[in-house]
């Protein structure tokens, strides 16, 4: 009996040893699946990794994205110049330097004009906002997020609304000390309560995981036409009321014969985003109370 037990234990040990890679991989696989299936339950995940990204990686992203634009401009000009004036190196060098300076000035003028626009909007709107710059774009297959250069130290909180003078960008989903991650309205996980500006029909705007939006839960009988503007309803308390989300570009009868299938083109061009405004939640509460 004792011998049998020992043999069994030995067999089990040998089996585990022989298949240890598969067993550990399978355990990690199950753990990953568990993480994924419980991701939307509000539990905070990967805090250490996020802190690391916010403290160590964000400054690198900031430096890369800042210098990349300047380098590509200068390099582009340099290629043009060597093709045109290959016989005059010294002159080329001067021109390149001047071009680089000119580009830098142009960038500053562009930045000034964009910031002026943001500032004018900021002053015109009744709610209090914080301005932030984009550090990184994460346009993976079904994911649409951006990293901004403001974090908890700058008063940024989770679920803050992110907007531009053109309309809604998304909301903050993760905050680090010096940077935060913003879920764009085009991400699959994004849903924003909205209304059709013309008819006041209510619905929910969801991201399609690419670069578009879908207006969901609009009844077949409801009046929605091509070209209608979709704005935030302000019901959730996250987004200020009346901010533009996009324009209706497709209206079809839904497969369930109950709801319409409506495609919405976002007003904001996410690929050109550089600066955004973060709305303080207390400001929305004050606006709602008024």
């Amino acid at each position, binding site marked *: 009996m004792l011998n049998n037990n020992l043999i069994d234990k030995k067999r089990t040990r040998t089996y585990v040893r022989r298949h240890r890679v598969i067993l550990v*991989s399978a355990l990690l696989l199950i753990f*990953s699946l568990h*993480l*994924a299936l419980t991701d939307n339950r509000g539990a905070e995940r990967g805090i250490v990794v996020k802190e690391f990204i916010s403290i160590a990686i964000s400054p690198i992203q900031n430096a890369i994205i800042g210098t990349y634009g300047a380098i590509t401009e200068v390099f582009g000009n340099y290629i043009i110049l060597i093709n045109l004036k290959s016989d005059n190196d010294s002159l080329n060098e001067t021109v390149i330097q001047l071009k680089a300076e000119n580009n830098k000035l142009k960038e500053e003028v562009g930045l000034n004009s964009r910031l002026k626009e943001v500032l004018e909007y900021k002053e015109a709107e009744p709610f209090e906002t914080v301005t932030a710059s984009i550090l990184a774009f994460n346009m993976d297959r*079904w*994911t649409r997020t951006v990293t901004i250069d403001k974090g908890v130290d700058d008063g940024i909180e989770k679920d803050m609304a992110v907007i531009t003078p053109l309309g809604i960008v998304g909301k903050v989903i993760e905050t680090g000390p010096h940077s935060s991650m913003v879920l764009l309205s085009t991400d*699959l996980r994004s849903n924003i309560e909205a209304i059709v500006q013309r008819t006041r029909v209510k619905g929910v705007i969801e991201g399609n995981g690419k670069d578009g939006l879908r207006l969901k839960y609009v009844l077949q009988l409801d009046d929605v036409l091509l070209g209608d503007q979709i704005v935030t309803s302000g019901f959730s308390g996250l987004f200020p009321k009346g901010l533009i989300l996009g324009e209706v570009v497709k209206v079809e009868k839904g497969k369930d014969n109950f709801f319409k299938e409506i495609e919405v083109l976002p007003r904001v061009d996410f*690929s050109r985003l550089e600066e955004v405004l973060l709305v303080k939640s207390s400001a929305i509460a004050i606006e709602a109370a008024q």
Partner: protein
Amino acid sequence: MKDFIIFIPITVLYLVLKSTIFISIPIPDLPLIIVLFIAYNRASIEGAVLGFVIGYLEDAFTGGVFGSTSFALMVIFIVVYLLSKRVTFSTPFIRALAAGLLTVLKGLLIYTVLHLTHFDAPLLGSILIAAVVTGAFTPAIILLLTRISGTVDPQTLKR
């Protein structure tokens, strides 16, 4: 431990460049290639944990559904590990083909996870573009990884 020292910084650098410079340019799926490389070349518990960590890092960087990429990479690790007993990933063609097919598998696995988590994800054609790009670059990248890995730990490398 050496694998962690080599491949984690490479993955972080890749994710930083992908989110800043190569935003809209299709680039090879380096995390997948690293997992393929480890699974057929030196499958171990350390390799499995590294595959999980790489997937976790990718999810943290992109702000995607936590666990979706690590799940896909763990499936890929197991598939390659089991296949490596029958197939030798020694020629550039086999490596390219395997990487291309595994990119499609990775896309399908993440798509399935998103559906299981009740997100109405569209099946994207861009998976195929990613598969072609990853497949095309894989032989060269594996050669590079072998060199880098060999300089740090030449003895444990198989041909």
